[in-house]
């Protein structure tokens, strides 16, 4: 089986033991390498490590990869290969210790909490029996990790939410929530890129566009990136939003060694 120590990212709290996976059929154009069925930083680390190795090896017929919390889907061209051949290549590539990506990026993301920008902040505070200020502090305290970009372009699903803030989703999803929504659902935190329906709790909003066609890069975040939320004065919203609309990142990127 795979080695354990080398799969553990530097800031992971739990050691990874014997990461095994199974391969699930997704028709003729994809297969999913499933490490587990839970939200678990160790599973996500294994997913990203295997993905890095597969992207470096580029097995014939591989079109693109989609890492998620706990699985890695490989989209393939059935004219150039077939799922069985790709599975064999993956099993070969998964032998031995998987390397942890060498460098990680940290993003400082401005967030205006509460009020019109975070309409659920007070309700979440009331539910947890703490002042709204404490919800903001607890939400802005951790260094989150982008475990998955999915659902819609640039939607960043984050691990690292303070368990004291965890709250099951709203029974009735809202038909529209704005671009840049910063929300929580269950034990997960999210940066939304574009307007969409959502059943999560809206704590705030960022002017950052994690998906912006015409800007370089079009997608700001990558799976594996770290994110810190920076509570921001509502008075700065308009200026930051204008700058972001003009193509500025508005988020600060910090490069560092793993």
């Amino acid at each position, binding site marked *: 089986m795979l080695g354990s120590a080398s799969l553990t990212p530097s800031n992971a709290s739990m050691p990874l033991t014997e990461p095994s996976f199974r391969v699930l059929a997704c028709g003729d154009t994809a297969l999913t390498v499933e490490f587990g069925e839970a939200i678990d930083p160790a599973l996500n680390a294994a997913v990203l490590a295997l993905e890095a190795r597969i992207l470096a090896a580029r097995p014939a017929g591989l079109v693109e990869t989609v890492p998620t919390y706990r699985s890695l889907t490989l989209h393939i061209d059935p004219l150039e290969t077939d799922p069985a051949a790709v599975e064999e290549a993956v099993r070969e590539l998964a032998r031995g210790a998987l390397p942890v990506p060498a460098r990680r990026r940290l993003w400082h993301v401005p967030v205006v909490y509460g009020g019109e920008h975070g309409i659920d902040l007070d309700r979440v505070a009331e539910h947890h029996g703490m002042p709204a200020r404490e919800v903001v502090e607890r939400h802005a305290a951790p260094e989150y990790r982008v475990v998955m970009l*999915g659902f819609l372009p640039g939607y960043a699903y984050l691990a690292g939410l303070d368990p004291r803030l965890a709250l099951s989703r709203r029974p009735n999803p809202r038909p529209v929530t704005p671009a840049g929504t910063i929300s929580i659902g269950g034990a997960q935190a999210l940066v939304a890129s574009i307007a969409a329906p959502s059943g999560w709790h809206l704590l705030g909003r960022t002017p950052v566009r994690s998906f912006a066609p015409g800007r370089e890069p079009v997608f700001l975040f990558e799976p594996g990136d770290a994110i810190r939320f920076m509570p921001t004065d509502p008075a700065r919203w308009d200026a930051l939003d204008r700058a972001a609309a003009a193509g500025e990142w508005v988020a600060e990127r910090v490069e560092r060694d793993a």
Partner: protein
Amino acid sequence: MSRAHLLVLECGPATGLQDGGRPGYQRQGLSGSGPMDRLALAAANALVGNAPGVAALELALTGARLRAAGGSVRLALAGAPFGLSIDGEAVGDHRSFQVPDGATLVLRPPRQGLFAYLAVAGGIHVPESLGSRALHLRAALGGLEGRNLRAGDRLPVATCTDAAPDRALVPLPLDADEPVRVVLGPQADHFPDEAVADFLATPYTVSNRADRMGYQLDGQTIRHGGRGFNIVSDATVPGSVQVPGSGLPIILMADRQTTGGYPKIATVISADLRRVAQRRPGEPLRFAPVSVDRAVALAREAAALQAGLAGRLGPVTSREERLMEANLAGDAVDALAP
């Protein structure tokens, strides 16, 4: 190459531009878009001498009126058989034709099928976004300014300068009565065996909630197993059959969400996705299981059929001759019926 325009005088709400699609961004949450009926796009393009994935108009059920401006243009329509006329004179589908400068092309809704592609010789010269002209409406990306077409739009196209004869193809059968083939999984094991058996044995109908993102089906609800109807999100593929809490399956299509939190009981094989796409709301649909190996073989057959389109082009003949030819060839006559 000099420039002409196709001027949109009128069109339905879901008329957009599609090309071969935009692979490579699913890792960032952007699905690949592309045509709902890939073979039909390739056929329309073959008829006007284009490569299979050149951008074309995708029409969905509703008609349109277009005018050639600044030069004559060569067009062809394939897929659902929309009724076509140029300045009031009928012209067939699945053949190329020229629309003279200033003439108006009217497209009337088809009697069967849903999606058709109107290809332009030389393509449609809107800018690419992330390497493709395919419209992804939710992402406001591709197409014309990231949106569907509307009256007043001007599409830059090539002027048709050659005098080459028009070409025709026997319309592609939709095999509407045949079952849609699926590979079970990736989460078939989230359902009791009887629920999987029911899913395969029971006819469904396409509901009104069907668009480029997905086709919600009506019919017998599928019971989830003990693990319920939520999974920790994992990736979807075109053709994923996800079963949300309602128990009614949704087939995910070209503009789908890239990840989802509902278990996926099965995956429609790539060769049959166009047949799902062409089913209208209210029309029946049933499933049949195949192996992954069989699905791969069928994908390769479909690719061979597409690659052979250019070689199957023939002269434009009368409807009667085409009918006879279709009968002799054993192709679906339904697709030709007026």
